[in-house]
């Protein structure tokens, strides 16, 4: 059977149970629930520090009503961060490479921000469709452009996350195949390729963290406009 490079993105089944279920539940084991001790263990302390950092960064630009979204945004951030980083381990499955899952995350959250804005302050929300100071003849075209850009936001959110992670995983698989294939023939070229692979893995770790952050940041930006 030929080696197909897209096989890593299909969720394998064992006894009818897909691996994606395990990959979604496993991060819960790595994040300990906070307890009432004054001095926690190192893992809990690290986690609390990270959570405080994330929450502070996300909540500073939002007003009081926006703070109701703190739990949603912070837990989303932790989930995406752990899922993306765990996907870099060997043989694991990354659920965020599936477009269905990312759209399921992006679309309802974006729609929630949009509906909140339209319900509570409709004029301000609709006012965002026309930037200040546009020349009068341009107004109809600009409204159409802004509406398109508004409606394409959930698609962009979902596809950005999917594409970045999928591309990264594919690149890692391709370059590691090249390294293994070259090893018997040209060892020096193989070592150079292995160096490229090392840099790529470091890049992928960064991308995993950045993409999670960008997803949540954009959502909080959409929230700021509408709340």
């Amino acid at each position: 059977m030929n080696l197909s490079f897209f096989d890593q993105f299909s969720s394998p089944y064992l006894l009818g149970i897909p691996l994606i279920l395990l990959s979604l539940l496993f991060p819960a084991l790595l994040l300990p629930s906070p307890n009432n001790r004054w001095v926690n263990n190192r893992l809990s302390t690290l986690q609390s520090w990270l959570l405080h950092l994330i929450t502070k960064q996300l909540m500073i630009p939002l007003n009081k009503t926006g703070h109701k979204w703190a739990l949603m945004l912070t837990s989303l951030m932790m989930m995406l961060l752990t899922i993306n980083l765990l996907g870099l381990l060997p043989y694991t499955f990354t659920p965020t490479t599936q477009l269905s899952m990312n759209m399921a995350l992006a679309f309802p959250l974006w729609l929630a921000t949009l509906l909140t804005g339209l319900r509570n302050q409709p004029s301000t929300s609709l006012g965002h469709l026309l930037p200040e100071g546009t020349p009068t003849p341009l107004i109809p075209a600009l409204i159409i452009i802004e509406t398109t850009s508004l409606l394409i936001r959930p698609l962009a959110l979902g596809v950005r996350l999917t594409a970045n992670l999928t591309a990264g995983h594919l690149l890692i698989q391709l370059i590691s195949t090249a390294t293994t294939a070259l090893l018997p023939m040209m060892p020096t070229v193989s070592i150079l390729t292995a160096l490229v692979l090392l840099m790529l893995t470091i890049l992928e770790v960064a991308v995993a963290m950045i993409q999670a952050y960008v997803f949540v940041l954009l959502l909080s930006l959409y929230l700021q406009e509408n709340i």
Partner: protein
Amino acid sequence: GLLSERHLMDVRLGELPMWLATCDFSPQGLLGGIQKAWSSYCNKYINVKRGGVAGVSMLLAGYCILSYGWNYQHISKISFLVSI
């Protein structure tokens, strides 16, 4: 002491079938056993004063091995003699 109250690690090999007979295999019993195992793992490796990476690394290694087992049927069909 009493056989049913000892931990698995303290049971000798010859006594294993007897120990298994005293186990509670109902759903509540199994869940209680899983809970006990998880909390004893946490207390031994994570809830310590100077915990290191070992506690979490063992969990990650177990996760990798479990994923490998899940994938095994699919991976075993890949033949490396195919020219790329």
